[in-house]
């Protein structure tokens, strides 16, 4: 038969795989009606890939499928599929799926001349016809090389088979074992598949297993070229696109309380934005979990769901410890508002954590997510990977409008860890918790390093973990810096003493003033008395002289009359000189 290639300038039709994330990075699935090679080492998930491709096709896209198994028997296959939550028996009974196990024992076989694979062709054709299949999986056809003689004939026949499948317009997944890094398949069958090649990889790095998927080629289509982590669990395969979604998530203006009134006060009086991401960093024992627990408690009180990823403590331990500061999380767990997801970070690779997060978030639909602490993820991965994971996680949570709190452990006191500085740019708010050492004791302090889009306090606040929660205090700023704990108490004492002294001084001055006022008033009374006496005498003398004046005038009149002069003329002449004289 001719080479399996048909130049086609039309836009490529794609068949959705239904595998979570894969359709995103392939831009709509595998090339429809063409073969795709899925290659990978032992245990890399090739069979699961093929199974899920068929099952999703049959259940979600109405495309029935045929599974030709060259390795596993049908009971084994059914059992394995059940571990992914797929009921193959039911699909087979519904005529949506056809399973065929191809097996020949090499020991029975002798070659007596030329042969072809018509037996296989007939079986596939019959199966396809029986269920009306659009999809075929050949898992792993290269097994035939171990069973049939004459590899030359076999290669030619396999090439013919691929061409035939393409001719029939069947979307085919061909799995192949990759045993050497420089080759995709053991027997070089990749050269017959020119449309799409996907590589699965399962590697162990520092004792932690990670699965990765890469699209080696995809003719006629753009595709993501990165290595994408993926996971196989009870719900099948999930592939995680690394660069997700862009930056178009909504930005709600709703504010939610932190559960600590004075902390809300530091954040413009209203708390965090809903859907924002918050970094809580601090040294060990600085109270990160306690602050997070307050937030969780507040959210649950509002009737919101919370998802708590605990990478350090077990849920029970967290519940117990938080009870000691008066936060009882247990009822929330009981009511189904709070769900813990606890696991040691070393339990899986970084992408596994991300996938678990995705799954839990998708199924639990929380409003608040706490990851405590992200720094533990560094144990299983590099800073670069953690950052990339957090980027995806933050983006994912933001699109769901979930408020996320990430705690981060700072190793030393004071200077920021590189990881923190690196991760912080992803975060909307950053609270730094610090242990401050003064006078032989460690005290806790908190400040808001940043909080995008809201006014926030620039103050460092000391806080206490009391029997009923976290209490923020004012911090005393002394000449040597922030005063906390005993130093603060003694400073308070000193200030009180100084205050008393000042008050006493003030009272003393007040009394002196009183005294002076009294003296002044007494003097005023005396002066007034003196003045009154003087006034009386002066008044007296004035009235006396007035009287004297009148008498004088009368006397003068009498004198004139008595001299009997010309009264009118006299008066004229007489009065004038008097006036002049005066």
């Amino acid at each position, binding site marked *: 038969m001719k080479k399996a290639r048909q130049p086609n300038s039309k836009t490529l039709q794609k068949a959705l795989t239904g595998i979570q994330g894969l359709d995103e990075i392939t831009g709509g699935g595998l090339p429809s009606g063409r073969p795709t090679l899925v290659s990978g080492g032992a245990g890399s998930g090739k069979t699961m890939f093929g199974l899920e491709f068929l099952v999703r096709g049959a259940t979600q896209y109405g495309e029935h499928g045929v599974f030709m198994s060259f390795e596993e028997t049908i009971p084994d296959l059914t059992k394995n599929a059940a571990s992914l939550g797929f009921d193959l028996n039911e699909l087979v009974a519904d005529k949506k799926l056809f399973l065929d196990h191809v097996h020949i024992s090499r020991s029975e*076989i002798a070659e*007596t*001349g030329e*042969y072809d694979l*018509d037996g296989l062709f007939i079986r596939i054709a019959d199966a396809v016809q029986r269920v009306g299949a659009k999809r075929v999986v050949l898992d792993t056809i290269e097994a035939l090389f171990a069973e049939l003689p004459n590899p030359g004939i076999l290669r030619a026949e396999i090439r013919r088979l691929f061409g035939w499948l393409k001719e029939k317009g069947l979307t085919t997944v061909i799995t192949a074992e990759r045993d050497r890094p420089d080759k995709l398949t053991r027997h070089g069958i990749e050269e017959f598949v020119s449309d799409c090649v996907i590589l699965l990889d399962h590697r162990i790095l520092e004792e932690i297993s990670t699965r990765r998927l890469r699209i080696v080629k995809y003719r006629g289509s753009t595709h993501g070229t990165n290595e994408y982590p993926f996971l196989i669990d009870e719900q099948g395969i999930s592939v995680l696109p690394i660069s997700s979604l862009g930056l178009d998530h909504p930005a709600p203006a709703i504010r939610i309380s932190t559960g600590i009134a004075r902390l809300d006060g530091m954040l413009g009086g209203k708390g965090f934005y809903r859907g924002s991401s918050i970094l809580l960093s601090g040294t060990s024992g600085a109270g990160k979990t306690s602050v997070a627990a307050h937030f969780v408690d507040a959210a649950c009180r509002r009737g919101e769901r919370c998802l708590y990823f605990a990478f350090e403590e077990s849920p029970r331990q967290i519940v117990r410890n938080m009870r000691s500061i008066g936060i009882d999380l247990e009822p929330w767990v009981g009511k189904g508002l709070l769900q813990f997801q606890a696991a040691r970070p070393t339990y899986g690779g970084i992408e596994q954590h991300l996938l678990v997060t995705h799954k839990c978030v998708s199924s639990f639909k929380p409003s608040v997510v706490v990851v405590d602490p992200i720094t533990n993820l560094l144990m299983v991965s590099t800073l670069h990977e953690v950052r990339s994971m957090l980027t995806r996680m933050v983006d994912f949570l933001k699109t769901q409008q979930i408020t996320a709190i990430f705690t981060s452990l700072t190793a030393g006191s004071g200077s920021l860890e590189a990881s923190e500085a690196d991760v912080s740019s992803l975060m909307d708010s950053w609270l730094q918790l610090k242990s401050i050492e003064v006078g032989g004791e460690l005290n806790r302090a908190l400040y808001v390093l940043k909080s995008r889009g809201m006014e926030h306090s620039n103050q460092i606040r000391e806080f206490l973990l009391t029997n009923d929660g976290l209490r923020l205090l004012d911090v005393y700023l002394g000449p040597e810096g922030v005063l906390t704990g005993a130093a603060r108490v003694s400073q308070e004492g000193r200030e009180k003493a100084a205050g008393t002294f000042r008050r006493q001084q003030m009272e003393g001055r007040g009394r002196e003033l009183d005294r002076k006022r009294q003296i002044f008033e007494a003097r005023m009374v005396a002066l007034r008395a003196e003045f009154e006496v003087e006034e009386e005498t002066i008044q007296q003398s004035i009235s006396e002289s007035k009287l004297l004046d009148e008498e004088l005038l009368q006397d003068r009149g009498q004198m004139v009359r008595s001299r009997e002069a010309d009264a009118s003329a006299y008066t004229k002449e007489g009065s004038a000189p008097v006036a002049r004289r005066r």
Partner: protein
Amino acid sequence: MKKPRKHPATFVLRLYISDSTVKSERAVVNLKRVCEEHLNGRYHLEVIDIHKQANLARDEQIVAVPTLIKQLPLPLRRLVGDMSDLNKVLFGLDLRMQEQ
């Protein structure tokens, strides 16, 4: 040519072919000749065309065509190919002790 056993067993043979391809036809011709020459009446040969009987192909695990299955005498043997290599056919049918 080999000495038949004292109580020569009857051979039960099934030849699976597909349609009437050249290879299949050749296999039928070749096999019949072998049987005539070496089994001389002590055989029962059934030629099965799987073209319309895919279930048979499945049940007997036929992948390559033509395939000859020697059901009896035991052990069961499968011979693949157009039966043009006489030595291999005889060896495969236990009619010859070693390949020449």
